[in-house]
């Protein structure tokens, strides 16, 4: 599913909204999450998951081609931890599929 497919689904579920508004709503949600992370804040969406920012320490790397040492500055990386409900959902579906496949083999 892409962002435009998400927008289309949302529009279908909310026929009273203008397409333009649905686009703005979706844009706002992801934009706010990005802004929060850029500010170093955490975004916690119970049941879905949590976005946070981790700091990678500066290190000396090597150019794999020449072997020369290069200083790699510290940097911040976004991190997502899947929420419990979502993790369970993913696995419930997977188990169901596995069971169905096993049943078919019999």
């Amino acid at each position, binding site marked *: *599913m*892409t*962002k435009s497919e*998400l927008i289309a*689904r*949302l529009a279908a*579920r*909310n026929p009273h*909204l203008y397409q333009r*508004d649905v686009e*703005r*709503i*979706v844009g*706002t*949600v*992801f934009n*706010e*999450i*990005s*802004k*929060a*992370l*850029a*500010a*170093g*804040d*955490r*975004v*916690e*969406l*119970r*049941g*879905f*998951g949590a*976005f946070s*920012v981790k700091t990678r320490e500066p290190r000396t790397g090597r150019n794999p081609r020449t072997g020369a040492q290069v200083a790699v500055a510290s*940097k*911040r*990386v*976004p*991190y*997502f931890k*899947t929420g419990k409900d*979502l*993790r369970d*959902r*993913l*696995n*419930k*579906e*997977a188990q169901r599929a*596995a069971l169905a496949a096993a049943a078919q083999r019999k």
Partner: protein
Amino acid sequence: MEGRSITRADLSESVFQEVGLSRNESSDLVEVILDEMVEALARGESVKISSFGSFTVRDKGERIGRNPKTGQEVPILPRRVLVFRASNVLKNAINGVEGSSDDE
């Protein structure tokens, strides 16, 4: 670490401010967005949000794990995990880099 924690309520408030729907409707819509994403992921689809990032479902095979306390071997059943890959736009924004290159 430092910093605040943003929740659904904050996202709803932003939608309310930006789009001008009622507070109730704004929070319903935030919920529906997450719900649609969850449904797609549960179907095994990946979710790609341009300039934000992508969520992919990965199948992990069965393996033998060990209870670290007792050292006893326990089978870890095959399972599905979710992987989030941030887009370059998001990575750059987090590192304070302006005018990011290639969107995905």
